[in-house]
């Protein structure tokens, strides 16, 4: 009996994991995908993917692009995400501080945590003057090529750090992998010297980010905080110098403000 229950549990686990994998393959982006592209991204058999997309269609997590055999994300996950954000006191408490920093520096401010080899934005505020770089809460950015990712990596214990860097590199070509390692190490040196790291073109072209790690709540949960902006002509070093003091100050305040929370995100 117990065995039967656990078998049933593991079948459920596999099915649900596959379904969520298909949904996550959209990476929170608006771009539409075909079943074939989803097969490529998830590595799941075609028949499995098409049953899962048809389920997601019926539950309104996906919709069909009119006139095409392509899917895009629909309103299904809206309520789930909102429920998470609205009931998370720690993130709510962080909002005013982030907005203040965004307005002061005319940048966007993001709070991110690890999601596999990516960074997931759990908080995001944008200065009213920033017109571009519209990445919001729920955005998923590559850890290996962004300032917010590098700052997160830097704060990890050495073994975990190495493992995650290698994992990031595994998804690149050999040539890219060397450049990736180099840019991560350069950020680490910056973090040691200045307490922040600045990275250009990390995710969107012609944008930059300046980031540092923070630890919040009683559990000391590791997060990463960044300021970002679109940049047409700019000197990254001087931007780093402009942003670093205010960012460090805000990070200190945030850690102090969130110190007494249970610390779970």
């Amino acid at each position: 009996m117990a065995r039967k229950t656990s078998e049933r549990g593991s079948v459920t686990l596999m099915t649900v994991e596959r379904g969520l994998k298909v949904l996550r393959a959209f990476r929170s982006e608006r771009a539409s995908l075909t079943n074939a592209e989803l097969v490529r991204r998830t590595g799941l058999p075609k028949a499995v993917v098409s049953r899962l997309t048809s389920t997601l269609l019926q539950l309104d997590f996906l919709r069909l692009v009119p006139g095409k055999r392509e899917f895009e994300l629909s309103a299904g996950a809206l309520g789930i995400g909102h429920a998470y954000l609205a009931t998370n006191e720690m993130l709510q408490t962080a909002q005013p501080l982030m907005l203040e920093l965004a307005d002061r520096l005319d940048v966007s401010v993001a709070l991110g945590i690890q999601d596999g080899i990516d960074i997931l934005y759990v908080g995001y505020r944008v200065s009213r003057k920033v017109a571009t770089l519209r990445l919001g809460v729920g955005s998923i950015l590559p850890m290996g090529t962004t300032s917010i990712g590098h700052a997160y990596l830097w704060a990890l214990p050495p073994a975990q750090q190495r493992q995650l860097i290698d994992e990031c590199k595994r998804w690149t070509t050999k040539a890219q992998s060397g450049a990736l390692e180099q840019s991560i190490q350069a950020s680490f040196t910056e973090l040691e010297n200045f307490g922040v790291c600045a990275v250009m073109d990390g995710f969107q072209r012609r944008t930059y980010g300046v980031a540092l790690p923070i630890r919040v709540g009683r559990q000391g949960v590791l997060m990463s905080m960044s300021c970002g902006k679109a940049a047409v002509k700019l000197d990254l070093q001087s931007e780093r110098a402009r942003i670093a003091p205010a960012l460090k100050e805000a990070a200190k305040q945030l850690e102090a403000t969130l110190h007494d929370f249970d610390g779970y995100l």
Partner: protein
Amino acid sequence: MNRSMFHSSASASFHFDNPSLQRSGGHGSIVTPFARALSVLSAFTLKDRWLGNGDLAQRTGLPASTVTRMTRTLIALGYLRCSADTRRFCLSPSALTLGYRAAADTEIHYAVNHHMAQFAERHHVQVHLSLRDKFNLVIIDSCRTSALPALLQPGIGTRLLLASSAAGWALLASLPETERNYLLQSMKYPPQDAGKQIRLRLNEAIGQIREDGFCVALGQSGQPMTMVAAPIKLSGQAPLAVSCMGPAMLMGRARSVRELGPALVRMTQKIQHGQEPP
């Protein structure tokens, strides 16, 4: 919040015996364990961080043993976390990876938000942007007004019944006729007179939208809020509706029809023409 108008927030999750989920025609069959897992995640609302097995079973319509299997699965996959006493569950940040951003944070949403905020400030009403989700509408953006207590103002993610709210009528009005008829036929109505009443109101509202570009649902006993709504059509976007809401004693027929309705229509025209607010 008035439950008769706001399809109770608990129904943000789809109840599992919802017939629309079990219809196997159209798109083909459903992968049941996956659908159940999503319904457990969808059971969480803005009001409750923690839910127990019992709450989840009630909200999803699933048997307790299934709920247990689902919560275990979702904890193992990192989408739920359980409390220290392991009796209650809350969503994990991974809940944000399932498409939240695409729905909540589009370019258009940004553009529309400016107009809405201005409208809320000028007219002292709450303004919503909503889209259709099956037989409900979902509020995807909201600009509150300080003139009303926050408690009376439904938040983002709130679902209302399409057939009995002004914003729902506006969404229905902007659909092609065949699609609208299909929806109206598949909807569940209250029995007899109440259902007839709803259909009558709906037809009237669609007529009003054709004529004036907006429709009005006046507050009355049992539903003290008035709502005025207008559709927005943007190329390449699912139909949207903007609506404003306030207590019936401040939003009577005259003000709704003469001031707020036309102002909403002007706002939708600006949005449709891609104008920045002044």
